[in-house]
C-alpha cells in the first residue's frame, strides 16, 4: 500500500538555508546538504527546497546545492522558486533534482507546465498553488508572487487546468493557515484533492500529528509538507510518524 508522505521544506537563499534551524549536533546548520542528510536519516520521505534567492548568482549557487544533494542522498527532492522557463527546469533537473515546482510563472504563462511535462514527463512537474478564501468568490482564490497578487482563478479550476496541462502533482498552500500551526485547511485540501487525479501535498498550518492525520483522512491529501515545526524541533519526523501509525495512517 502506498504510504502517506511527510515532506520537510527548506528555504534556501544564496545557497544557505534560512529561518532559524535549531538542531543540535549539526556542524553547519545553514548548509542545505547537511540538513538534507539530517532529514533523510530522520525519515523524511521527500524534501522540498525553495530557492528564495533574489539574484542570478544565488540561483547559480542553487544548482550547486542541487548537485551536492543529489550526489549524497537517496531520497527524492523537489526544487521550487525562480523556475520561470523550460531552461530553468532543465538546469535544476539535470543537476539531479527529481521534480521542479512552478507557481507564479505557471499562472502568468500556463504553457510552461505543458512544456516541462512534455519534455520531462508529468511526474517531474509540481504545480504549487497559494490559495486564500475569498468571500466574494465564495471559494478560495489563487494568488501569485508569494501571495501578494490575486488572480482571477478559483482554486479547483486552476488545479484542474494545471493537471490538464501536465502537472503531475499539486502542492497546495493555504494562505489563511500558513504559519498558524492550527492545522491544515481541510476544506480547501479536500476540495482540490477530490477535483484532481494527481497527488496533492497539503501545506500551511501544520502544528502536530493530529493535523497531519486530519489532512490525510478528512482532507484526502497524499502528503503533508511543513517547515517550522520540523526546523524548530517541535516535532521530529520519527515521532510524527509513530503517532500517525498509532492513529492507523500508513507511513514508511
Amino acid at each position, binding site marked *: *500500500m*502506498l*504510504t502517506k*508522505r511527510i515532506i520537510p521544506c527548506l528555504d534556501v537563499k544564496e545557497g544557505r538555508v534560512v529561518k532559524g534551524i535549531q538542531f543540535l549536533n549539526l556542524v553547519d546548520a545553514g548548509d542545505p546538504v547537511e540538513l538534507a542528510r539530517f532529514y*533523510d536519516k530522520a525519515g523524511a*520521505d521527500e524534501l522540498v527546497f525553495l530557492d528564495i534567492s533574489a539574484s542570478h548568482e544565488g540561483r547559480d549557487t542553487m544548482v550547486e546545492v542541487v*548537485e551536492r544533494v*543529489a*550526489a*549524497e542522498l*537517496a*531520497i*527524492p527532492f523537489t526544487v521550487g522558486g525562480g523556475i520561470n522557463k523550460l531552461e530553468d527546469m532543465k538546469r535544476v*533537473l*539535470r*543537476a*539531479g533534482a*527529481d521534480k521542479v515546482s512552478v507557481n507564479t510563472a505557471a499562472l502568468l504563462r500556463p504553457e510552461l507546465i505543458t512544456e516541462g511535462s512534455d519534455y*520531462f*514527463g*508529468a*511526474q*517531474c512537474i509540481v504545480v504549487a498553488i497559494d490559495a486564500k478564501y475569498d468571500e466574494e468568490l465564495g471559494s478560495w482564490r489563487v494568488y501569485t508572487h508569494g501571495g501578494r497578487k490575486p488572480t482571477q482563478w478559483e482554486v479547483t479550476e486552476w488545479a484542474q487546468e494545471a493537471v490538464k496541462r501536465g502537472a*503531475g*502533482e499539486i502542492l497546495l498552500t493555504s494562505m489563511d493557515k500558513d504559519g498558524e500551526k492550527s492545522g491544515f485547511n481541510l476544506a480547501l485540501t479536500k476540495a482540490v484533492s477530490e477535483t484532481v*487525479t*494527481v*497527488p496533492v501535498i497539503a501545506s500551511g498550518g501544520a502544528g502536530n500529528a493530529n493535523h497531519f492525520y486530519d489532512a490525510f483522512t478528512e482532507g484526502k491529501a*497524499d*502528503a503533508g509538507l511543513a517547515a517550522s515545526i520540523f526546523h524548530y524541533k517541535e516535532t521530529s519526523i520519527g515521532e510524527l510518524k509513530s503517532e500517525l501509525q498509532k492513529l492507523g495512517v500508513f507511513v*514508511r
Partner: protein
Amino acid sequence: MIGIIDYGMGNLHSVCSALKRIEQPYILSGNPEELHETDGLLLPGVGSFKDAMNELKETGLIDFIKKETENGKPLMGICLGMQLLFEESTENGLTKGLGLLPGRVDRFSGVTAEGKAYKVPHMGWNNLHFLQKEQPLLKGLNEGYVYFVHSFVVQTDDRNVLAAAAHYEDVEVPAVVGRDHIMGTQFHPEKSSETGMGMLKNFCRFVEEGKQR
C-alpha cells in the same frame, strides 16, 4: 566495470551518483563499442516508451543490447528502462519493446474493479512483497519501502519473472522482475534509501560474480 547506457532519455545523474556512493566503477556511454567492454549494463530511463525505443533504435543500441544479453551479459533496467525489457507498450500507440522478458506495458486504468477512482501516477513510497527471495537483486535484503513514480505498469502471465510486487489499489505492480541475467526494477533504487541501494549493490555483485564464472 558497469556500463550505464546513455541514449538521451532522462536524468542519469542520480544513477551515476548512486554508483559513485557504493564505489562501483562505471562508464556512461551511448557507444556500443565502449559499452561492449563492460561487464554489466544498466538501462535507466525517464520519459515515454515510444521515444525511448526510437532513441535506442537510432543509436543502434537495440541490436547491441540483444546481442550482449544473448551472450550472457547482465542487464538491469530501471523504471522506464525496466519496462523496455518487455515485449510491447501501449504508451502513445503500440510500440515494440526489447522483448527480453514476456509481458506488455499498459497504463494504470485509474479505476478499481469495484469502480472506485484512484490517482495516477502511482507516486510515493510503497512496500515490497518478495515473491522470489533468491532473485539476485533481492538476495540478503528484507522487504522494505521503495520510491515509485510511474503511470504505466507491466502485465505478465509468466509469474516466473516476478521477483517482487507492490500493491496499489487493486493492482499488483511488478516491482522487481527478472529471468537469469536480465532484471529490472519499476521503482528508482537510487532514490529508495537503503533497500534500493542494496539492490544496486546486489546487481554489481552479480556482475562481479559473473566475471568469475
